[in-house]
């Protein structure tokens, strides 16, 4: 099937560093780009202030680029559709605009929140948020020994992005002859150039105090910070002219709304990319919707830059003129439009039109979760059809003499590879184990397992990815639900439920795979 009617307009949500750099890289490939931001004017995220000159240079270039459009005071009202054809309603300066975009890049800027509360203090003339200090610092001259204390996040700990910012300010203050203290539980230096910067800051006389106990701040005539220095194990009291608190980096408020209307999975913090290596660098659970930098997590600037280039790369790939294979079909005679498929699809690829289910071939990842869940068996994958898998079951059972005879349904991304590796390296695999490859554990239909048992298999082994590693996010979880049900069912009819066994195994763990299979074999003997 040809890719057709892909709308070439690209929507970039967020005009901070991540949005602007992504827009720039995408526009280099001649896509019309629309950048929207909730605020008036376009500004770099305060945590990346250091890189403002880059930002402004790129922003200026973009403003002079044909086919790049900036919408300020713009909010998303509604989004419908799938990759290649997203219908988007925007409110721009209070007026509704309707657009169609082929792809969406979520680069919502960070929300920064000073952590006054963590230390039970309130902002004042000498208790500042980091941004306020950055404003003030411009007017500072010789600070002549004035004392500045930086307080970093304690409960959930800081991160290299915030730390870099604190260290840079500490350096500047030290250069102005201030006495600087940075109090931290752990110095977060895991980013390019940070250790060197911390070294430099220390060399200029700033003191980094490490402590395992939360510092106490008392505000009287002067501000007093008490802290137990865990290196010298002594209580230190600092009389501070200024206390500066870290600004916690949080996901943008609009992420939650975007997650809801776009069916995007978030991580626990609320960024629009799950904690799943399969989503790195810029993928979401939906094709055609990408996430960059501040939309996806707390990232140092160089990663924001990398994301912007990767977004351009992915968009170009999405629009590449190539055949897309027709991987799935719906039998309209069987379908009763119950919308189970629509609800279970992790990739938002399914919609309906006049009581007919429509699966976007561009958005479908071919996991087959919908096919396994469809109560009417109306959905079939082109390869891995029910018929195809059942004939593999019959073939395996009729051709295998070895006992115990175990039918393995293995996810092609994990267990199937582990199985292949085990064979290749000569690890112990029972002769009676017959593997059947499936696109995702979520494709393993209850019917397959029962059919294998009915046909005479001694056991059924389901091999899935580890939780949190599934390309379709929940395929392995669907599989585990079904297995639980089957086990209950088997028990109720007097069959040993241990005949059905599930393992989670990574593709590279052939030895572990072999050990686990052995365990099952012993149970069945």
């Amino acid at each position, binding site marked *: 099937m040809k890719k057709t009617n892909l709308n070439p307009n690209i929507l970039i949500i967020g005009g901070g560093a991540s949005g602007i750099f992504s827009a720039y890289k995408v526009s280099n490939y001649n896509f019309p780009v629309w950048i929207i931001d909730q605020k008036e004017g376009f500004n770099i995220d305060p945590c990346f202030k250091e890189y403002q000159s880059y930002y402004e240079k790129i922003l200026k270039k973009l403003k002079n680029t044909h086919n790049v459009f900036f919408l300020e005071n713009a909010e998303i009202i509604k989004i419908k559709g799938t990759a290649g054809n997203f219908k988007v309603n925007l409110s721009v300066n209070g007026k509704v605009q309707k657009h169609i975009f082929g792809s969406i890049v979520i680069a919502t800027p960070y929300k920064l929140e000073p952590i006054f509360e963590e230390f039970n203090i309130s902002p004042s003339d000498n208790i500042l948020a980091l941004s306020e200090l950055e404003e003030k610092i411009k007017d500072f001259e010789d600070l002549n020994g004035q004392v500045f204390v930086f307080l970093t996040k304690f409960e959930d700990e800081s991160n290299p992005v915030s730390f870099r910012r604190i260290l840079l300010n500490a350096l500047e203050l030290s250069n102005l002859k201030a006495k600087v203290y940075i109090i931290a539980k*752990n110095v977060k230096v895991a980013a390019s150039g940070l250790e060197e910067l911390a070294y430099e800051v220390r060399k200029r006389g700033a003191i980094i105090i490490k402590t395992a106990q939360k510092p106490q701040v008392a505000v009287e005539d002067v501000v007093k910070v008490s802290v137990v220095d865990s290196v010298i194990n002594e209580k230190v009291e600092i009389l501070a002219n200024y206390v500066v608190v870290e600004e916690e980096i949080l996901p943008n408020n609009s992420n939650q709304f975007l997650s809801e209307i776009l069916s995007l999975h978030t991580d626990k913090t609320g960024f629009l990319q799950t904690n799943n*290596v399969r989503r790195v660098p810029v993928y979401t659970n939906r094709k055609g919707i990408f996430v960059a930098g501040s939309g996806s997590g707390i990232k140092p600037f160089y990663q924001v830059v990398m994301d912007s280039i990767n977004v351009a790369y992915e968009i170009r790939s999405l629009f590449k003129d190539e055949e897309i294979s027709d991987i799935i079909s719906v039998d309209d005679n069987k379908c009763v439009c119950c919308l189970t498929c629509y609800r279970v699809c992790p990739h938002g690829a399914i919609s309906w039109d006049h009581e007919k289910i429509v699966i976007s071939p561009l958005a479908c990842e071919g996991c087959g979760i919908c096919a396994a869940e469809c109560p009417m068996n109306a959905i079939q994958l082109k390869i891995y059809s029910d018929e195809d898998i059942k004939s593999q079951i019959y073939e395996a059972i009729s051709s295998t003499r070895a006992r115990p005879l175990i039918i393995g349904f293995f996810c092609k991304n994990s267990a199937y590879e582990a199985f292949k590796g085990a064979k290749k390296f000569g690890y112990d695999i029972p002769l009676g184990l017959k593997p059947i490859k499936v696109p995702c554990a979520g494709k393993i239909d209850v019917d397959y397992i029962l059919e294998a048992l009915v046909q005479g298999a001694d056991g059924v082994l389901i091999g899935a990815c580890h939780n*949190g590693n599934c390309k379709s996010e929940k395929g392995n979880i669907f599989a585990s639900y079904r297995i639980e049900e089957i086990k209950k069912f088997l028990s109720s009819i007097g069959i040993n439920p241990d005949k059905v066994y599930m393992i989670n195994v990574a593709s590279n763990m052939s030895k572990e795979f072999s050990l686990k299979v052995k365990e099952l074999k012993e149970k069945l003997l």
Partner: protein
Amino acid sequence: MKDKVLVIGGGIAGLSAAFYLAQEGVNVHLVEKNYFLGGVAIGFTCKATDKCQQCGVCIVEETLRDVTQNPNINIYLGTEVKEIKKDKKFKVKLGKSSISYPKDTYVRGFSKYNHPLYVAKDTTIGLPKDSMVADEIGVEAEIFADAIILATGFDPFDPTLRSTYGYKLWKDVITGLDLEHMLRENCEVIRPSNGEKAHKIAFIQCVGSRSKEFNTLWCSEVCCPYALRMASFVKYRDPETDIWFFFIDLQNVGKEYSWFFKEIEEKINFVNAVPIDLVYDENIQKVKAFYRNDKGERQVEEFDLVILSIGISANMDNQKLAQITGLDLGEDGFFKSKSLLEPSLSQREGIFLAGTVTGPKNIMDTISHAKIAVNETLTYLGRI
């Protein structure tokens, strides 16, 4: 004529670059000085507990599979780049690798078409069918390339330099890399001295990182994550294992660090100090770790096994590679990208940088960097 790109290095950066280029229809020469593909990362173990811990090791394996099955990629194992000349194209001289293995060791990996590859000088150890031996590998040839991606990676820090830890001297002092290999091969933690299970183990962080003394004044970024993930994995597999974790500053692990840390905080004995000395006591057959606690008092703790979390150092070949490619190295010994906004461009047109060749990166960032290098290479070739 199809474009040809030379990818130097067959670790995760080189594999990813080769694969994404090949997918765009580019012909790739993938040159690896070792006798197997996958670089350092190929020996890593999956660290999943009841859930994936997001280390990315499985992706390395999958990329390896994709590369070895791709007809657009020509793989040269046991081969080094000896010379690069630029005319209209790059003219590249390849020669046999100078790496040799001791006669009695063998390395296991994958060759082209994903055949198991046992690199062995001594073939009497009974190798599987269709495996290859080192002496047959290595190519001398002259090839042409339209662009070059330098993906030669890093060298793990050599822990023998930190002599007070007695690596190589004490069998039960191993590196994080050794533990990765052990877990992958045996799925349990064994004391190399006697082959028995290790019940009490220690991780020591920052071995060869954050050190002015060793000229490695950087955080390697990967060691806290890999060590904490392994500690968590070992504890999950065997909750009886007593795990100590010596550190200077704990670095965040992945995206949901506070959740991750809360899960392991109580299960692992964290000590905010690193031992000064490690000594193996023959009488009790334990490794003694000497350190100072937070009260400044001298402490000794005995362990079955001590794991040194070695960091990322610049590849020892970088000097030579800099000469061959005509690129400059930074003071830290890594290659420098052209600018902050062009992280995979080198100072020379047509030569691109991917992965830890520019500095410490974890697996996923390495893949991300390699993709960028591919993007910039395709742009340079005028294909996009």
